């Protein structure tokens, strides 16, 4: 497989982190915690930083080991299969949710009516093809768009700032820490994009500043998300709940030039690119997990299978946005959100074991050398 550079990994992580967090999430979090959207995001990111640290540390130390190899060494073959299938399911659910989110985003921000049954087919075909081209291709495509995306984010935030009232974000944790904590745990599944990093294991070209570059991408995404949430809250306050498409809604606040030019269209179109890139990233994650768990090599049929499954689930008419939200905030999903971090945390233990093993190996080598020297002397 063609490896990606640390810079590319950083860019893709940036996009993956930002994408869906700028759509329905601020409104959904607001429904639970009121004006403390950004506090929830901050807590979730703090929680996420620890596994990210371990994964990056591991990546830097063992750049050639992929997830399957690491898990086999840590847990054995059978458990590895189970864990990878768990991640495949996790990524698949994220993919289906994203497909639903894209649908809602298009209806809310761009179209009067979207026949998603028809629209989803070209989306799946093209993004499936992009996925089939590989991680390098997804990363390179992301690299081309990154400047425009950052520009769109700056535009959106600047437009929001024009009408923002910072007092709307105060007081912090008005409803108490419990509510914020509950909101954080409930949304952990949606925040947990760092697990995409697990798929990058063994696929990033080793370089001295690898961890820093990827970390920079993730860190910037976290900071920009928090800033965006603060602005969103400052603009909408109690109306946050009703503004379901963060990036599209916030960009409508441009008082003077809307009769000449509407900048919200620009940010909306750019955001379609972002979500599509995340769509293919998640598709790739599911694909790789399935290949690894069934011991397959590159196989287009697996991708077709994933596409068909996403399509069938996405077009179930009863699975509307309310039901999706209900399922999404149910206890199994909350548990799933927590469980997916178990492996990254286990990396820390594995790093210590590996370190001990290496020390032992080194000591044995030295002892062996000493013994052979002694034998020679005798």
């Amino acid at each position: 497989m063609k490896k990606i550079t640390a810079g590319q990994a950083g860019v893709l992580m940036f996009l993956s982190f930002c994408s869906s967090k700028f759509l329905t999430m601020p409104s959904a979090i607001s429904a639970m915690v009121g004006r403390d959207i950004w506090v929830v995001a901050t807590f979730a990111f703090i929680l996420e930083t620890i596994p990210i640290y371990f994964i990056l540390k591991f990546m830097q130390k063992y750049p050639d080991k992929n997830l399957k190899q690491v898990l086999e060494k840590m847990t054995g073959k059978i458990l590895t299969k189970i864990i990878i299938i768990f991640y495949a399911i996790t990524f698949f659910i994220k993919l289906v949710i994203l497909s639903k989110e894209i649908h809602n985003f298009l209806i809310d921000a761009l179209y009067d009516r979207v026949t998603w049954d028809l629209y989803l087919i070209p989306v799946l075909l093209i993004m499936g093809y992009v996925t089939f081209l590989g991680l390098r291709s997804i990363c390179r495509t992301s690299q081309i768009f990154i400047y425009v995306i950052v520009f769109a984010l700056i535009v959106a935030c600047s437009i929001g700032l024009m009408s923002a009232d910072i007092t709307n974000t105060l007081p912090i944790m008005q409803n108490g820490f419990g509510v914020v904590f509950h909101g954080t745990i409930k949304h952990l599944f949606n925040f947990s994009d760092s697990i995409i990093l697990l798929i990058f294991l063994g696929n990033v070209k080793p370089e001295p500043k690898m961890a820093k570059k990827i970390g920079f991408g993730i860190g910037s995404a976290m900071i920009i998300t928090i800033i965006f949430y603060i602005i969103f809250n400052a603009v909408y306050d109690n109306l946050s709940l009703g503004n379901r498409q963060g990036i599209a809604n916030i960009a409508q606040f441009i008082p003077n030039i809307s009769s000449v030019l509407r900048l919200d269209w620009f940010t909306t179109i750019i955001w379609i690119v972002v979500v599509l890139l995340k769509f293919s990233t998640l598709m790739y994650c599911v694909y790789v997990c399935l290949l690894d768990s069934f011991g397959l090599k590159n196989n287009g049929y697996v991708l077709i299978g994933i596409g068909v499954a996403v399509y069938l689930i996405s077009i179930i008419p009863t699975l509307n946005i309310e039901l999706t939200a209900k399922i999404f905030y149910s206890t199994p999903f909350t548990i799933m959100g927590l469980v997916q971090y178990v492996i990254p945390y286990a990396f820390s233990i594995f790093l210590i074991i590996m370190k001990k093993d290496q020390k032992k190996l080194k000591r044995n080598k030295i002892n062996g050398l000493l013994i052979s020297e002694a034998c020679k002397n005798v």
Partner: protein
Amino acid sequence: MLNSKKLEINKIVFSNGLNNCPDLIMREFKICKKISACLVYLNTLVDADYINRDIISKILDLKDVKKKDIFKYIKENVISNSELKVVELESHAIDLILTGNAILLIDGEDKAIALSIQGWKLRPIQEPPNSVAIKGPREGFTEDIKINISLLRRRLVTPDLYIEEKTVGKYTKTKICVCYINTIVDKEIVKEINKKLNEISIDGIIDSAYIQEFLEPLNDSIFKQSGSSERPDVITSRLLEGRVAILVDGSPVVITIPFVLIEDFQNPEDYYGKTARAIFVRSIRFIGIMFSLFLPGIYVSVLLYHYRVIPLRLLITIANAIEGIPMTPVIETFFIIILFEILYEASLRMPKYLGMALSIVGGIIIGDMAIKSGIVSPPALIVVALSGLTIYTAPDAAPQLFIMRIGFTIMGAMLGFLGIVLGIVFVLARLSNFDSYGAAYLGPWAPNIPSGKNDAIVKAKTKNMSERPESIPNINNVRTE
């Protein structure tokens, strides 16, 4: 060895070998009044004056040379031709005759002397019509490979300019030269090109475009995978960046490999003027290409799906303009695109004196009347005309831009903005996955190559471009010491 030492037999062999063609001349004469000799050539390819003045008359002037020494004597003392060769095989000799050489056969000798005396008419060195520059050199390549090499040699005064010669084409026996700067180029590229050239099996090479097809890694792609230019200054600068140039005899267009997309945005004049101007012009070119690609698609999708995107006053103006048009926006747009392309194609092929008439018919009568009669709307005409014109801000990329424009218009008509975005992602993902001879096609943007960005949309000053662009693999990165 030749078939026989006897002149009569050799004459028959050559005559049969060249099928007694009408322009075959076998001029017989006696050397020192006793030894029979014959000069064989095609009078349509050689310089007749040179033959009379510098070969036949000089040989006829010979006196008192022994028969056994005659071949060596003529070779060393009589003929002043700088490209004299001794030929030992008939087949080789016939090939040489066909490329404008004269073969001197001497009775009793099993070898012949080949003299390079090509004398056909050549087009003089002129400014290439498709790449005119207001500032900068005005020379362009011609159809003669020797002149083209000399144009390069004059600019690259270094023994490191390597030229490898090949012959391709069963019937055309076209000379091809692979040129590169040995101390800069990545040898893997040269190896790969030579391998591909050696594998070519074709009856004839008429133009460098034939070779291009064999060298391009993706045969089904609409995108260019090799660069080309008629300007020696452009080819020289590309050689200095580590590319390989392929010159084909009979073609003024020189191919360069590897190719990266950014080359189509660059123009020789960018390097001969002020940097600020170059940056401005390149940005305009980039915006022009965006217009040409997306404008019809955006127009169609706005009218079909996203009319809310247009500010109210503009929306009313457009609504008034399209009111009563019998065609839907999609059909209307395609109708104008096809009409525009027909006019363009006709104006290219039409005799020059009819060109003026065509522009009147096309521009005024068809355009004006189509609007006045209510067949097409002014906004659609403006959109398509603007997009059609802006394609030529990057003329080298025009063929692929045209196809992509149609593709984006279809996607826009089918899915609106989502379709256009899907199309963009598809094209970029496909291109970003493609490496042309080790060079990333979308470099320096994907992957991100900082040194390459010095000469992308923004162009650094020449003195500040101290490194060769890493987008093109090379073995010597340093440009200025």
